[in-house]
């Protein structure tokens, strides 16, 4: 296992950011769709939705961290010398 270089951290961060953008697009771009959470019709509902949006955003960030790191680890430590067992 080789030491991490500056370039590795950059690619790691870049992959996490790209993963976050993809998750954000799939998740509706931080605007919770009216198909499953409609616009609240009272003040308390509004506050609940605000909190829910924060949880949503936090979930996106955490997911991007985990999934992005997984992608990066797969690419970084992929053993390219290993021959396919299918042959």
């Amino acid at each position, binding site marked *: 296992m080789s*030491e*991490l270089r500056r370039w590795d*951290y950059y690619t790691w961060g870049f992959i996490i950011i790209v993963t976050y953008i993809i998750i954000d697009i799939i998740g509706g771009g931080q605007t919770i769709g009216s198909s499953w*959470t*409609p*616009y*609240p*019709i*009272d*003040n*308390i*509902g509004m*506050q*609940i*939705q605000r*909190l*829910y949006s*924060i*949880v949503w955003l*936090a979930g996106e960030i*955490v997911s991007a*961290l985990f999934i992005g790191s997984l992608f990066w680890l797969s690419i970084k430590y992929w053993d390219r010398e290993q021959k396919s067992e299918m042959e």
Partner: protein
Amino acid sequence: MAEESKTIKQIEYLTIFGATILLFALGFMAIPLMYEIEDPREEDYIVKVTAEQWAWKFEYPNGEIISELNIKSGETVKLEMESTDVIHAFYVRDLHIKFDIIPGRVKEIWITPETPGEYWIQCAEFCGAFHGAMRTKMIVVE
């Protein structure tokens, strides 16, 4: 190698403290709201809600019992909810609220819908064969 292990440690601390701060911040924001939802407010009138397999009944102060909840926008209504058989849940998507109704207990909530329209009230606790059909409308008029 020492430099790398230091960086990894820093990332670990950042993750642990970051997640802790995030969770506490969410808790601090959510807890007052949880109390506010159930906090008694001065109501304009009381509606008694009876949940039973598989229907909703709403009893108004004048003694009228109907199967829909009619409210004027901006009015604060206290709902006294009871179940006659099994556990049901009063769920209004547009109000972003969901409360269990447990047999033998009266659940009190206060709602102040402001936007006129028709909204679904759905039982959100599995209550038997026709649970999915146990829904009615909350009509908010101007």
